[in-house]
């Protein structure tokens, strides 16, 4: 019987002929932990009598959630992380390096066909590179640091086939929001989502990363896309030598298959207070906004910043609206400077913040007051996620966020078609 990519990767990593439903112990190719969980990981590692990391070269330790630290309690966590990373010679990413998932993508640690775990639910992002990547908790991360192995239930896979050419001002974020709104927050629990189809093939790697990033919002264990020419070229440019991924067999068994034709897709927006509460932007147009956030592991890459800058160029944010731009990594930031995007943001009146998670997780750099409304390119809009429980968060593409910043209201970006 044929296998899906996930079944092939977990078979390879466990040395077993594994199919969906089997429990396997897999070799881990890379592990990532960040400051939101580090204290728990390090404490569990010590309690389990951990002396050395199984392979320091495969362990990334990132300060991104509260970076720079806004609280003394977190300064202590950061201090603990530095000491741990230096003592064990792990790869360490200091304040200002970027958001952990973008750093993992740039780090060379994520190989197509590999198994990657991270102490963050959006670890599923790396599936865009053809890896089996999933989020785990801190105690399990400590166990991985000790052993380099972890048990997995091999997931069933939902095939999501995306066909059609995206209309102007409609982007991968709109596609994934449409999919989340259809499959719902519980619809892919414990499963892998494999994206296929001509639309996926035509997307650049940054767009593919936006798709896989949000698979956890449907409960998925991972989102995965088989290696194609664009991804191959992307990895080659990053300095990868042996690039060899797995592909699903023709006769692989999928638990479900869902087709989306995106050729008529309109800009989408996720409305309060659940990610799967998705509507067309035009349905909620006109709602006044107070804050705009452009960034995060979903939409903080160069491609995203270019889209926002195209709309913002030569304009200024509406009075009373604050715009926070957080490039996903130092590399992204530098390229955005070189391309003149940061100049456009500064002219627009944006607060351009250091690379990291920014206000997405509600720690710092953009906490919402009661009654405020934020449009964000990030991935979660749960009540109180970014501050007050009486604030509202809308999730949309960088184009919709930028257009809304210009008008001061939730705005369909197709009003700026000439800029597109």
């Amino acid at each position: 019987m044929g296998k899906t990519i996930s079944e092939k990767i977990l078979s390879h990593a466990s040395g077993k002929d594994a199919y969906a439903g089997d429990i396997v112990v897999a070799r881990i190719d890379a592990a990532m932990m960040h400051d939101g969980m580090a204290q728990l990981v390090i404490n569990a590692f010590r309690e389990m009598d951990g002396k050395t990391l199984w392979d320091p070269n495969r362990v990334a330790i990132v300060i991104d959630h509260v970076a720079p630290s806004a609280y003394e309690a977190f300064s202590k966590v950061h201090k603990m992380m530095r000491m741990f990373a230096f003592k064990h010679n792990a790869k360490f990413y200091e304040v200002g390096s970027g958001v952990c998932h973008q750093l993992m993508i740039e780090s060379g640690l994520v190989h197509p066909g590999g198994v990657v775990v991270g102490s963050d639910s959006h670890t599923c992002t790396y599936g865009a590179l053809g890896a089996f990547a999933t989020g785990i908790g801190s105690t399990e991360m400590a166990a991985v640091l000790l052993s380099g192995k972890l048990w997995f239930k091999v997931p069933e896979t939902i095939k999501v086939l995306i066909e059609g050419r995206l209309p102007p001002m409609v982007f991968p974020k709109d596609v994934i929001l449409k999919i989340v709104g259809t499959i719902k927050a519980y619809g892919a629990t414990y499963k892998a989502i494999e994206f296929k189809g001509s639309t996926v093939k035509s997307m650049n790697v940054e767009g593919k990363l936006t798709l896989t990033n949000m698979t956890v919002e449907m409960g998925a264990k991972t989102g995965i896309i088989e290696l194609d020419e664009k991804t191959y070229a992307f990895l080659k440019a990053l300095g990868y030598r042996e690039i060899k991924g797995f592909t699903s067999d023709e006769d692989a068994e999928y638990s479900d298959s869902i087709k989306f034709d995106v050729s008529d897709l309109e800009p989408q927006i996720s409305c309060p207070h659940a990610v799967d509460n998705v509507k067309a932007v035009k349905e909620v147009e006109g709602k006044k906004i107070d804050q705009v956030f452009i960034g995060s592991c979903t939409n903080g890459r160069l491609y995203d910043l270019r889209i926002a800058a195209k709309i913002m160029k030569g304009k200024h944010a509406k009075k009373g609206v604050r715009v926070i731009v957080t490039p996903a990594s130092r590399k992204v930031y530098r390229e955005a400077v070189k391309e003149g995007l940061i100049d456009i943001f500064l002219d627009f009146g944006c607060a351009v913040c250091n690379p990291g998670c920014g206000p997405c997780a509600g720690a710092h750099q953009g906490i919402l007051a009661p009654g405020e409304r934020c449009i964000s390119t990030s991935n979660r809009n749960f009540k109180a996620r970014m501050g007050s429980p009486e604030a509202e968060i809308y999730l949309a593409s960088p184009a919709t966020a930028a257009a809304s910043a210009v008008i001061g209201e939730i705005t369909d970006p197709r009003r700026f078609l000439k800029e597109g």
Partner: protein
Amino acid sequence: MLGPGKVWKFGDDVNTDYIIAGKYKLSITDLDELSRHAMETLMPDFSKKVKKGDFIVAGRNFGCGSSREQAPLVLKHLEISAVIAKSFARIFYRNAVNIGLPVIECADVDKIEEGDILEADIQRGYVKNVTKMETYRIKPLPSEIQEILLEGGLVKYVKKHGRLPWQ
């Protein structure tokens, strides 16, 4: 046996931000202090109302969202007997097992009301509603998972056995 304890009832898709918000998780590292904010977005005084041995009963997809282990940790710290739900999000489920917070999948949660008194037994596979004099079957846990849970979590398992369950 778990309980007896009173039921606190919640709906579907209770995410980890609702169990413990990021603004607290990313500013407070003391578990006593952090636990005071458990479930705050959904029930502002939850940590004051809840008593040792009480149960959380919820609908489908409990614990969706982030991988924060602080979510099951605050519930365990408040000495919740178990979370009983129609289904769980996968990372929350694994985290709960790994820290020794019992998680029980039960199809009959709609029959349970807030304030009911429950008892539960994972090994024997039932939830007993003392108030309504009903007994519900639960989805049995795989033996590997039950073993970690009964030892009180992964750290305690390693301390006792000197190895990880998969080694």
